[in-house]
Protein backbone atom coordinates (compact mmCIF):
# COMPACT_ATOMS: atom_id res chain seq x y z
CA UNK A 1 0.00 0.00 0.00
CA UNK A 2 2.77 2.38 1.00
CA UNK A 3 4.48 1.62 -2.24
CA UNK A 4 1.35 2.45 -4.20
CA UNK A 5 1.04 5.76 -2.39
CA UNK A 6 4.69 6.56 -3.03
CA UNK A 7 4.25 5.69 -6.65
CA UNK A 8 1.16 7.87 -6.92
CA UNK A 9 2.96 10.73 -5.22
CA UNK A 10 5.83 10.42 -7.69
CA UNK A 11 3.42 10.45 -10.62
CA UNK A 12 1.63 13.52 -9.24
CA UNK A 13 4.96 15.25 -8.71
CA UNK A 14 6.05 14.43 -12.25
CA UNK A 15 2.82 15.71 -13.73
CA UNK A 16 2.86 18.90 -11.71
CA UNK A 17 6.44 19.83 -12.46
CA UNK A 18 6.11 23.53 -13.06
CA UNK A 19 6.61 25.13 -16.41
CA UNK A 20 9.77 26.78 -15.18
CA UNK A 21 12.01 23.73 -15.39
CA UNK A 22 15.11 24.87 -17.24
CA UNK A 23 14.60 24.92 -20.98
CA UNK A 24 10.86 24.20 -20.78
CA UNK A 25 8.66 27.14 -21.74
CA UNK A 26 4.92 27.61 -22.14
CA UNK A 27 4.04 30.22 -24.76
CA UNK A 28 0.55 31.71 -24.48
CA UNK A 29 -1.64 33.71 -26.80
CA UNK A 30 -5.08 35.25 -27.12
CA UNK A 31 -7.72 34.12 -29.53
CA UNK A 32 -7.37 36.35 -32.59
CA UNK A 33 -5.15 36.13 -35.64
CA UNK A 34 -2.37 38.51 -34.62
CA UNK A 35 -1.99 36.79 -31.27
CA UNK A 36 -2.14 33.33 -32.80
CA UNK A 37 0.58 34.34 -35.26
CA UNK A 38 2.77 35.76 -32.51
CA UNK A 39 2.40 32.73 -30.25
CA UNK A 40 3.03 30.32 -33.12
CA UNK A 41 6.02 32.34 -34.29
CA UNK A 42 7.49 32.54 -30.81
CA UNK A 43 6.96 28.84 -30.19
CA UNK A 44 8.65 27.88 -33.48
CA UNK A 45 11.48 30.34 -32.94
CA UNK A 46 12.20 29.12 -29.41
CA UNK A 47 11.87 25.47 -30.42
CA UNK A 48 14.43 26.17 -33.16
CA UNK A 49 16.76 27.53 -30.49
CA UNK A 50 16.49 24.24 -28.61
CA UNK A 51 13.92 25.03 -25.93
CA UNK A 52 11.23 22.52 -25.05
CA UNK A 53 8.15 24.59 -25.95
CA UNK A 54 4.49 24.13 -25.16
CA UNK A 55 1.98 26.37 -26.92
CA UNK A 56 -1.36 27.42 -25.44
CA UNK A 57 -3.48 30.03 -27.10
CA UNK A 58 -7.08 31.03 -27.75
CA UNK A 59 -7.72 32.66 -24.37
CA UNK A 60 -9.19 36.03 -23.47
CA UNK A 61 -6.84 38.68 -22.07
CA UNK A 62 -7.97 38.28 -18.48
CA UNK A 63 -7.70 34.50 -18.51
CA UNK A 64 -4.26 34.68 -20.08
CA UNK A 65 -3.02 37.23 -17.58
CA UNK A 66 -4.30 35.12 -14.68
CA UNK A 67 -2.61 32.05 -16.12
CA UNK A 68 0.68 33.93 -16.42
CA UNK A 69 0.50 35.21 -12.85
CA UNK A 70 -0.20 31.64 -11.71
CA UNK A 71 2.81 30.33 -13.61
CA UNK A 72 0.80 28.24 -16.07
CA UNK A 73 2.08 30.43 -18.90
CA UNK A 74 5.67 31.70 -19.07
CA UNK A 75 5.44 34.28 -21.79
CA UNK A 76 3.11 35.86 -24.31
CA UNK A 77 2.81 39.08 -26.32
CA UNK A 78 0.83 41.77 -24.55
CA UNK A 79 0.06 45.38 -25.48
CA UNK A 80 1.35 48.22 -23.31
CA UNK A 81 -2.07 49.94 -23.16
CA UNK A 82 -3.81 46.74 -22.08
CA UNK A 83 -1.21 46.09 -19.40
CA UNK A 84 -1.54 49.60 -18.07
CA UNK A 85 -5.29 50.22 -18.20
CA UNK A 86 -6.89 46.78 -18.01
CA UNK A 87 -4.50 45.01 -15.64
CA UNK A 88 -3.14 47.89 -13.58
CA UNK A 89 -6.19 50.16 -13.74
CA UNK A 90 -4.13 53.26 -14.55
CA UNK A 91 -6.36 55.67 -16.46
CA UNK A 92 -4.09 58.70 -16.84
CA UNK A 93 -3.30 59.83 -20.38
CA UNK A 94 0.35 58.96 -21.00
CA UNK A 95 2.71 59.11 -23.97
CA UNK A 96 3.70 55.75 -25.54
CA UNK A 97 7.08 55.93 -23.81
CA UNK A 98 5.54 56.73 -20.41
CA UNK A 99 2.96 54.00 -20.89
CA UNK A 100 5.67 51.40 -21.42
CA UNK A 101 7.84 52.54 -18.51
CA UNK A 102 4.89 52.70 -16.13
CA UNK A 103 3.55 49.26 -16.95
CA UNK A 104 7.06 47.78 -16.85
CA UNK A 105 7.60 49.17 -13.34
CA UNK A 106 4.20 48.05 -12.07
CA UNK A 107 4.41 44.52 -13.45
CA UNK A 108 7.95 43.95 -12.21
CA UNK A 109 6.44 43.91 -8.71
CA UNK A 110 4.27 40.92 -9.58
CA UNK A 111 7.09 38.98 -11.21
CA UNK A 112 6.50 39.82 -14.86
CA UNK A 113 9.11 41.47 -17.09
CA UNK A 114 8.18 43.61 -20.09
CA UNK A 115 11.01 43.23 -22.63
CA UNK A 116 11.63 45.72 -25.45
CA UNK A 117 8.41 47.06 -27.00
CA UNK A 118 7.99 46.55 -30.75
CA UNK A 119 7.02 49.24 -33.24
CA UNK A 120 3.66 47.52 -33.84
CA UNK A 121 0.91 49.59 -32.24
CA UNK A 122 -2.24 47.53 -32.37
CA UNK A 123 -4.54 50.20 -31.04
CA UNK A 124 -8.30 50.00 -31.12
CA UNK A 125 -9.95 52.11 -33.78
CA UNK A 126 -13.41 52.63 -35.24
CA UNK A 127 -13.93 51.95 -38.92
CA UNK A 128 -16.68 52.39 -41.51
CA UNK A 129 -17.13 51.42 -45.14
CA UNK A 130 -15.21 54.00 -47.16
CA UNK A 131 -18.01 55.01 -49.51
CA UNK A 132 -20.60 55.06 -46.75
CA UNK A 133 -18.47 57.32 -44.54
CA UNK A 134 -17.90 59.64 -47.50
CA UNK A 135 -21.59 59.75 -48.30
CA UNK A 136 -22.43 60.72 -44.72
CA UNK A 137 -19.49 63.13 -44.49
CA UNK A 138 -17.94 61.32 -41.54
CA UNK A 139 -14.21 61.67 -40.95
CA UNK A 140 -13.69 61.47 -37.21
CA UNK A 141 -15.18 59.70 -34.21
CA UNK A 142 -16.88 62.98 -33.24
CA UNK A 143 -18.57 63.12 -36.66
CA UNK A 144 -19.70 59.51 -36.22
CA UNK A 145 -21.18 60.13 -32.78
CA UNK A 146 -23.00 63.22 -34.09
CA UNK A 147 -24.40 61.13 -36.91
CA UNK A 148 -25.63 58.47 -34.44
CA UNK A 149 -27.59 61.19 -32.66
CA UNK A 150 -29.14 62.51 -35.87
CA UNK A 151 -32.44 61.29 -37.31
CA UNK A 152 -30.61 59.53 -40.13
CA UNK A 153 -28.25 57.54 -37.92
CA UNK A 154 -30.31 56.78 -34.87
CA UNK A 155 -30.96 53.15 -35.87
CA UNK A 156 -27.41 52.52 -37.09
CA UNK A 157 -25.63 49.55 -35.59
CA UNK A 158 -22.15 49.50 -34.21
CA UNK A 159 -20.27 46.22 -33.77
CA UNK A 160 -17.81 45.57 -31.00
CA UNK A 161 -16.18 42.45 -29.70
CA UNK A 162 -17.12 41.44 -26.17
CA UNK A 163 -13.79 42.30 -24.68
CA UNK A 164 -13.85 45.87 -26.00
CA UNK A 165 -17.39 46.38 -24.72
CA UNK A 166 -16.37 45.34 -21.21
CA UNK A 167 -12.84 46.65 -20.81
CA UNK A 168 -12.03 49.71 -18.70
CA UNK A 169 -10.12 51.16 -21.67
CA UNK A 170 -12.82 50.06 -24.09
CA UNK A 171 -16.16 51.27 -25.31
CA UNK A 172 -17.31 52.79 -22.03
CA UNK A 173 -14.34 55.09 -21.68
CA UNK A 174 -14.46 55.93 -25.38
CA UNK A 175 -18.07 57.07 -25.02
CA UNK A 176 -17.15 59.03 -21.90
CA UNK A 177 -14.26 60.72 -23.67
CA UNK A 178 -16.56 61.73 -26.51
CA UNK A 179 -19.41 62.56 -24.12
CA UNK A 180 -21.97 60.39 -25.81
CA UNK A 181 -24.45 58.08 -24.10
CA UNK A 182 -25.06 55.47 -26.77
CA UNK A 183 -28.39 53.62 -26.55
CA UNK A 184 -28.06 49.85 -26.08
CA UNK A 185 -29.98 49.05 -29.26
CA UNK A 186 -27.22 50.63 -31.38
CA UNK A 187 -24.65 48.16 -30.09
CA UNK A 188 -24.05 44.64 -31.34
CA UNK A 189 -21.50 42.45 -29.65
CA UNK A 190 -19.90 39.58 -31.50
CA UNK A 191 -16.69 37.61 -31.83
CA UNK A 192 -13.60 39.56 -32.86
CA UNK A 193 -13.36 37.71 -36.14
CA UNK A 194 -16.92 38.58 -37.17
CA UNK A 195 -16.82 42.36 -36.86
CA UNK A 196 -15.02 42.87 -40.19
CA UNK A 197 -17.50 40.65 -42.01
CA UNK A 198 -20.38 42.40 -40.27
CA UNK A 199 -19.21 45.77 -41.58
CA UNK A 200 -18.47 44.45 -45.08
CA UNK A 201 -21.88 42.71 -45.27
CA UNK A 202 -23.61 45.89 -44.06
CA UNK A 203 -25.00 44.17 -40.96
CA UNK A 204 -23.48 47.14 -39.11
CA UNK A 205 -22.34 50.60 -40.21
CA UNK A 206 -19.51 51.16 -37.73
CA UNK A 207 -17.24 48.67 -36.07
CA UNK A 208 -14.40 48.46 -33.64
CA UNK A 209 -11.26 47.23 -35.38
CA UNK A 210 -7.67 46.52 -34.48
CA UNK A 211 -5.42 48.97 -36.29
CA UNK A 212 -2.98 46.26 -37.39
CA UNK A 213 -5.63 43.89 -38.70
CA UNK A 214 -5.03 43.02 -42.34
CA UNK A 215 -8.73 43.12 -43.15
CA UNK A 216 -8.97 46.89 -42.62
CA UNK A 217 -6.91 47.48 -45.74
CA UNK A 218 -8.17 44.44 -47.65
CA UNK A 219 -11.84 45.39 -47.27
CA UNK A 220 -11.11 49.05 -47.97
CA UNK A 221 -12.45 50.31 -44.65
CA UNK A 222 -12.02 53.90 -43.57
CA UNK A 223 -10.51 54.27 -40.09
CA UNK A 224 -12.10 57.19 -38.25
CA UNK A 225 -9.81 59.82 -36.79
CA UNK A 226 -9.52 59.61 -33.02
CA UNK A 227 -9.87 63.41 -32.85
CA UNK A 228 -9.80 63.53 -29.04
CA UNK A 229 -6.75 61.23 -28.86
CA UNK A 230 -8.61 58.90 -26.57
CA UNK A 231 -6.98 55.57 -27.33
CA UNK A 232 -3.74 54.77 -25.51
CA UNK A 233 -0.69 53.26 -27.19
CA UNK A 234 -0.79 49.49 -27.58
CA UNK A 235 2.77 48.50 -28.41
CA UNK A 236 3.11 44.75 -28.89
CA UNK A 237 5.66 43.57 -26.33
CA UNK A 238 6.90 40.19 -25.09
CA UNK A 239 6.05 39.77 -21.41
CA UNK A 240 7.91 37.02 -19.55
CA UNK A 241 7.79 35.66 -16.03
CA UNK A 242 10.86 36.67 -14.03
CA UNK A 243 11.65 33.08 -13.06
CA UNK A 244 11.62 31.98 -16.70
CA UNK A 245 14.20 34.67 -17.45
CA UNK A 246 16.26 33.61 -14.44
CA UNK A 247 16.42 29.99 -15.56
CA UNK A 248 17.04 30.94 -19.21
CA UNK A 249 19.57 33.81 -19.27
CA UNK A 250 19.59 33.99 -23.10
CA UNK A 251 15.82 34.29 -23.44
CA UNK A 252 15.47 38.07 -23.08
CA UNK A 253 17.89 38.82 -25.93
CA UNK A 254 16.35 36.17 -28.14
CA UNK A 255 12.86 37.59 -27.70
CA UNK A 256 14.02 41.17 -28.15
CA UNK A 257 15.43 40.15 -31.53
CA UNK A 258 11.93 39.13 -32.59
CA UNK A 259 10.37 42.23 -31.06
CA UNK A 260 12.71 44.48 -33.07
CA UNK A 261 11.36 43.02 -36.32
CA UNK A 262 7.74 43.93 -35.66
CA UNK A 263 6.04 47.11 -36.84
CA UNK A 264 2.57 48.16 -38.03
CA UNK A 265 3.28 47.36 -41.67
CA UNK A 266 4.79 43.94 -40.97
CA UNK A 267 2.02 43.03 -38.60
CA UNK A 268 -0.85 43.96 -40.89
CA UNK A 269 0.83 42.15 -43.78
CA UNK A 270 1.16 38.98 -41.69
CA UNK A 271 -2.43 39.31 -40.47
CA UNK A 272 -3.68 39.78 -44.04
CA UNK A 273 -1.85 36.65 -45.22
CA UNK A 274 -3.95 34.66 -42.76
CA UNK A 275 -7.28 36.50 -42.72
CA UNK A 276 -7.46 37.56 -46.36
CA UNK A 277 -5.34 35.04 -48.30
CA UNK A 278 -6.28 32.13 -46.06
CA UNK A 279 -2.77 30.82 -45.39
CA UNK A 280 -2.24 28.82 -42.22
CA UNK A 281 -0.97 30.62 -39.13
CA UNK A 282 1.82 28.13 -38.67
CA UNK A 283 3.04 28.61 -42.24
CA UNK A 284 2.88 32.41 -42.21
CA UNK A 285 4.87 32.61 -38.99
CA UNK A 286 7.42 30.03 -40.18
CA UNK A 287 8.00 31.90 -43.46
CA UNK A 288 8.51 35.14 -41.59
CA UNK A 289 11.12 33.55 -39.33
CA UNK A 290 12.90 32.00 -42.32
CA UNK A 291 12.94 35.29 -44.27
CA UNK A 292 14.52 37.00 -41.28
CA UNK A 293 17.07 34.27 -40.64
CA UNK A 294 15.66 33.26 -37.27
CA UNK A 295 14.89 29.68 -38.27
Amino acid at each position, binding site marked *: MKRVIALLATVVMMVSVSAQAAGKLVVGGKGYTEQLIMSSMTAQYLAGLGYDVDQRDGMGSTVLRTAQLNGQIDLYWEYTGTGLVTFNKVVEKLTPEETYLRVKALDEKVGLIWLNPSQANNTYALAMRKDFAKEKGIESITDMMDWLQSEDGKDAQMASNV*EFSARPDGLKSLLEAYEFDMPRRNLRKMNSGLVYQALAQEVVDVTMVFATDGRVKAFGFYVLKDDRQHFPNYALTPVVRTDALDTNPELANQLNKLSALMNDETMSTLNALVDVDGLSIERVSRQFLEQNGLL
Partner: protein
Amino acid sequence: MKSINLSPYFNALLLVTVFLLGIWVQSSGFVEQFVYYWDEILYLSGHHIKLTLISGSIAILIGVPVGIILSRPSCRKAADVVMQIFNIGTTVPTLAVLALSMSFLGIGDKPAIFALAFASVLPILRNTYTGLLSVPAHLKEAATGIGLTPIQQLVKVELPNAMYVIMAGIRTAFAINIGTVPLAFQIGGTGLGELIFAGIDLYDTPMMLAGAIPTAVLALIMDMVLGVVTFLIVSKGVNPNRK
Protein backbone atom coordinates in the same frame (compact mmCIF):
# COMPACT_ATOMS: atom_id res chain seq x y z
CA MET B 1 -60.91 24.07 -14.02
CA LYS B 2 -58.88 21.40 -12.30
CA SER B 3 -55.28 21.97 -11.41
CA ILE B 4 -52.74 21.33 -14.14
CA ASN B 5 -50.65 18.22 -13.67
CA LEU B 6 -47.12 19.42 -14.21
CA SER B 7 -44.72 16.66 -15.06
CA PRO B 8 -42.50 15.35 -12.27
CA TYR B 9 -39.51 16.34 -14.40
CA PHE B 10 -40.62 19.90 -14.23
CA ASN B 11 -40.98 19.76 -10.46
CA ALA B 12 -37.51 18.29 -10.13
CA LEU B 13 -36.13 20.97 -12.41
CA LEU B 14 -37.86 23.65 -10.42
CA LEU B 15 -36.40 22.29 -7.20
CA VAL B 16 -32.91 22.17 -8.67
CA THR B 17 -33.29 25.66 -10.05
CA VAL B 18 -34.48 27.05 -6.73
CA PHE B 19 -31.60 25.30 -5.00
CA LEU B 20 -29.08 26.72 -7.46
CA LEU B 21 -30.64 30.14 -7.12
CA GLY B 22 -30.15 29.89 -3.37
CA ILE B 23 -26.50 29.00 -3.73
CA TRP B 24 -26.11 31.78 -6.19
CA VAL B 25 -27.73 34.46 -4.02
CA GLN B 26 -25.51 33.31 -1.18
CA SER B 27 -22.38 33.78 -3.21
CA SER B 28 -20.62 37.06 -2.84
CA GLY B 29 -22.22 40.24 -4.05
CA PHE B 30 -24.40 38.31 -6.36
CA VAL B 31 -27.51 40.40 -6.11
CA GLU B 32 -25.69 43.63 -6.88
CA GLN B 33 -24.07 41.95 -9.87
CA PHE B 34 -27.42 40.77 -11.11
CA VAL B 35 -28.92 44.22 -10.74
CA TYR B 36 -25.89 45.57 -12.59
CA TYR B 37 -26.66 43.36 -15.58
CA TRP B 38 -30.43 43.73 -15.32
CA ASP B 39 -30.90 46.10 -18.27
CA GLU B 40 -28.63 43.95 -20.37
CA ILE B 41 -30.54 40.81 -19.35
CA LEU B 42 -33.89 42.36 -20.24
CA TYR B 43 -32.66 43.65 -23.59
CA LEU B 44 -31.02 40.38 -24.53
CA SER B 45 -33.90 38.24 -23.24
CA GLY B 46 -36.23 40.16 -25.53
CA HIS B 47 -34.01 39.37 -28.49
CA HIS B 48 -33.60 35.80 -27.32
CA ILE B 49 -37.36 35.21 -27.17
CA LYS B 50 -37.82 36.91 -30.53
CA LEU B 51 -35.35 34.54 -32.18
CA THR B 52 -37.01 31.53 -30.56
CA LEU B 53 -40.54 32.59 -31.51
CA ILE B 54 -39.66 33.37 -35.12
CA SER B 55 -37.62 30.22 -35.71
CA GLY B 56 -40.08 28.08 -33.70
CA SER B 57 -43.03 29.37 -35.72
CA ILE B 58 -41.22 28.60 -38.96
CA ALA B 59 -40.52 25.10 -37.66
CA ILE B 60 -44.22 24.60 -36.76
CA LEU B 61 -45.33 25.91 -40.16
CA ILE B 62 -43.05 23.39 -41.86
CA GLY B 63 -43.17 20.46 -39.43
CA VAL B 64 -46.93 20.13 -38.90
CA PRO B 65 -48.05 20.28 -42.56
CA VAL B 66 -45.26 17.94 -43.69
CA GLY B 67 -46.15 15.57 -40.85
CA ILE B 68 -49.80 15.61 -41.89
CA ILE B 69 -48.95 14.95 -45.55
CA LEU B 70 -46.60 12.08 -44.65
CA SER B 71 -49.22 10.43 -42.49
CA ARG B 72 -51.75 10.23 -45.37
CA PRO B 73 -52.18 6.70 -46.72
CA SER B 74 -51.09 7.81 -50.21
CA CYS B 75 -47.68 8.90 -48.86
CA ARG B 76 -46.94 5.87 -46.67
CA LYS B 77 -44.19 4.61 -48.96
CA ALA B 78 -42.37 7.93 -49.19
CA ALA B 79 -42.83 8.65 -45.49
CA ASP B 80 -40.15 6.23 -44.29
CA VAL B 81 -37.56 7.68 -46.64
CA VAL B 82 -38.42 11.29 -45.75
CA MET B 83 -38.37 10.55 -42.01
CA GLN B 84 -34.96 8.92 -42.42
CA ILE B 85 -33.60 12.00 -44.19
CA PHE B 86 -34.91 14.24 -41.43
CA ASN B 87 -33.47 11.88 -38.81
CA ILE B 88 -30.05 12.15 -40.43
CA GLY B 89 -30.54 15.92 -40.43
CA THR B 90 -30.78 15.96 -36.64
CA THR B 91 -27.54 14.10 -36.16
CA VAL B 92 -25.70 17.15 -37.56
CA PRO B 93 -24.54 19.13 -34.52
CA THR B 94 -26.29 22.47 -34.13
CA LEU B 95 -23.03 24.38 -34.16
CA ALA B 96 -22.22 22.84 -37.54
CA VAL B 97 -25.65 23.89 -38.83
CA LEU B 98 -24.97 27.41 -37.57
CA ALA B 99 -21.59 27.47 -39.29
CA LEU B 100 -23.06 26.18 -42.54
CA SER B 101 -25.91 28.67 -42.55
CA MET B 102 -23.43 31.46 -41.85
CA SER B 103 -21.46 30.48 -44.93
CA PHE B 104 -24.40 31.09 -47.25
CA LEU B 105 -26.56 33.60 -45.35
CA GLY B 106 -23.81 35.80 -43.94
CA ILE B 107 -23.76 36.74 -40.27
CA GLY B 108 -26.41 38.09 -37.91
CA ASP B 109 -29.91 37.02 -36.95
CA LYS B 110 -30.99 35.65 -40.33
CA PRO B 111 -28.68 32.63 -40.47
CA ALA B 112 -29.34 32.08 -36.76
CA ILE B 113 -33.09 31.88 -37.35
CA PHE B 114 -32.56 29.51 -40.25
CA ALA B 115 -30.34 27.18 -38.23
CA LEU B 116 -32.66 27.25 -35.20
CA ALA B 117 -35.67 26.45 -37.36
CA PHE B 118 -33.72 23.59 -38.92
CA ALA B 119 -32.91 22.18 -35.50
CA SER B 120 -36.53 22.51 -34.30
CA VAL B 121 -38.33 20.98 -37.26
CA LEU B 122 -37.61 17.34 -36.57
CA PRO B 123 -39.28 16.83 -33.16
CA ILE B 124 -42.39 18.62 -34.43
CA LEU B 125 -42.50 16.63 -37.65
CA ARG B 126 -41.86 13.31 -35.93
CA ASN B 127 -44.51 13.83 -33.28
CA THR B 128 -47.07 15.03 -35.82
CA TYR B 129 -46.43 11.98 -37.94
CA THR B 130 -46.50 9.40 -35.14
CA GLY B 131 -49.38 11.18 -33.39
CA LEU B 132 -51.55 10.95 -36.48
CA LEU B 133 -50.55 7.34 -37.18
CA SER B 134 -51.45 6.27 -33.68
CA VAL B 135 -55.03 7.51 -33.84
CA PRO B 136 -57.07 4.33 -33.16
CA ALA B 137 -58.31 2.69 -36.36
CA HIS B 138 -61.86 2.26 -35.03
CA LEU B 139 -62.22 6.01 -34.69
CA LYS B 140 -61.21 6.54 -38.30
CA GLU B 141 -63.59 3.76 -39.37
CA ALA B 142 -66.43 5.34 -37.45
CA ALA B 143 -65.64 8.69 -39.04
CA THR B 144 -65.73 7.17 -42.51
CA GLY B 145 -68.93 5.35 -41.52
CA ILE B 146 -70.82 8.53 -40.70
CA GLY B 147 -69.81 9.96 -44.05
CA LEU B 148 -67.00 12.40 -43.23
CA THR B 149 -64.78 13.42 -46.12
CA PRO B 150 -61.02 12.78 -45.64
CA ILE B 151 -60.46 16.46 -44.83
CA GLN B 152 -63.28 16.51 -42.27
CA GLN B 153 -61.94 13.29 -40.81
CA LEU B 154 -58.49 14.89 -40.44
CA VAL B 155 -59.78 18.08 -38.84
CA LYS B 156 -62.55 16.63 -36.65
CA VAL B 157 -61.15 13.27 -35.63
CA GLU B 158 -57.47 12.73 -36.31
CA LEU B 159 -55.92 16.08 -35.36
CA PRO B 160 -57.82 16.42 -32.05
CA ASN B 161 -56.75 12.91 -31.11
CA ALA B 162 -53.15 13.49 -32.10
CA MET B 163 -52.97 17.02 -30.67
CA TYR B 164 -51.45 16.01 -27.34
CA VAL B 165 -48.56 14.23 -29.03
CA ILE B 166 -48.06 17.08 -31.52
CA MET B 167 -47.91 19.60 -28.69
CA ALA B 168 -45.36 17.44 -26.88
CA GLY B 169 -43.19 17.66 -29.99
CA ILE B 170 -43.56 21.42 -30.09
CA ARG B 171 -42.60 21.64 -26.42
CA THR B 172 -39.48 19.58 -27.02
CA ALA B 173 -38.58 21.67 -30.05
CA PHE B 174 -38.95 24.96 -28.18
CA ALA B 175 -36.90 23.70 -25.25
CA ILE B 176 -34.08 22.71 -27.61
CA ASN B 177 -34.48 25.96 -29.46
CA ILE B 178 -34.25 28.25 -26.45
CA GLY B 179 -31.20 26.39 -25.22
CA THR B 180 -29.55 26.70 -28.63
CA VAL B 181 -30.06 30.44 -29.14
CA PRO B 182 -26.97 31.27 -27.03
CA LEU B 183 -24.83 29.38 -29.56
CA ALA B 184 -26.09 31.76 -32.25
CA PHE B 185 -23.85 34.38 -30.68
CA GLN B 186 -20.98 32.66 -32.46
CA ILE B 187 -22.39 33.75 -35.83
CA GLY B 188 -23.46 37.24 -34.77
CA GLY B 189 -27.00 36.48 -33.56
CA THR B 190 -28.16 38.50 -30.57
CA GLY B 191 -29.30 36.65 -27.45
CA LEU B 192 -28.30 35.77 -23.93
CA GLY B 193 -25.28 33.98 -25.40
CA GLU B 194 -23.66 37.39 -25.48
CA LEU B 195 -23.39 37.41 -21.69
CA ILE B 196 -22.44 33.74 -21.47
CA PHE B 197 -19.63 33.87 -24.04
CA ALA B 198 -18.46 37.29 -22.90
CA GLY B 199 -18.34 35.95 -19.34
CA ILE B 200 -16.26 32.97 -20.44
CA ASP B 201 -14.01 35.18 -22.53
CA LEU B 202 -13.43 37.69 -19.75
CA TYR B 203 -13.31 35.13 -16.93
CA ASP B 204 -16.22 36.94 -15.33
CA THR B 205 -18.43 34.39 -13.57
CA PRO B 206 -21.26 36.75 -12.59
CA MET B 207 -21.54 37.89 -16.19
CA MET B 208 -21.64 34.30 -17.38
CA LEU B 209 -24.34 33.40 -14.85
CA ALA B 210 -26.28 36.55 -15.79
CA GLY B 211 -26.59 34.91 -19.19
CA ALA B 212 -26.90 31.26 -18.20
CA ILE B 213 -29.51 31.53 -15.46
CA PRO B 214 -31.99 33.66 -17.45
CA THR B 215 -31.56 31.18 -20.32
CA ALA B 216 -32.57 28.33 -18.02
CA VAL B 217 -35.44 30.36 -16.57
CA LEU B 218 -36.67 31.27 -20.06
CA ALA B 219 -36.65 27.61 -21.03
CA LEU B 220 -38.71 26.73 -17.94
CA ILE B 221 -41.19 29.55 -18.53
CA MET B 222 -41.54 28.58 -22.18
CA ASP B 223 -42.21 24.98 -21.18
CA MET B 224 -44.81 26.06 -18.62
CA VAL B 225 -46.58 28.33 -21.09
CA LEU B 226 -46.69 25.60 -23.70
CA GLY B 227 -47.93 23.21 -21.02
CA VAL B 228 -50.84 25.52 -20.30
CA VAL B 229 -51.51 25.95 -24.02
CA THR B 230 -51.54 22.17 -24.42
CA PHE B 231 -54.00 21.86 -21.54
CA LEU B 232 -56.30 24.40 -23.14
CA ILE B 233 -56.30 23.23 -26.75
CA VAL B 234 -56.38 19.46 -26.38
CA SER B 235 -60.00 18.31 -26.35
CA LYS B 236 -61.37 17.28 -22.97
CA GLY B 237 -62.08 13.71 -23.98
CA VAL B 238 -58.52 12.86 -25.01
CA ASN B 239 -56.54 15.04 -22.63
CA PRO B 240 -54.57 12.85 -20.21
CA ASN B 241 -54.20 15.85 -17.87
CA ARG B 242 -57.94 16.21 -17.38
CA LYS B 243 -58.78 12.71 -16.30
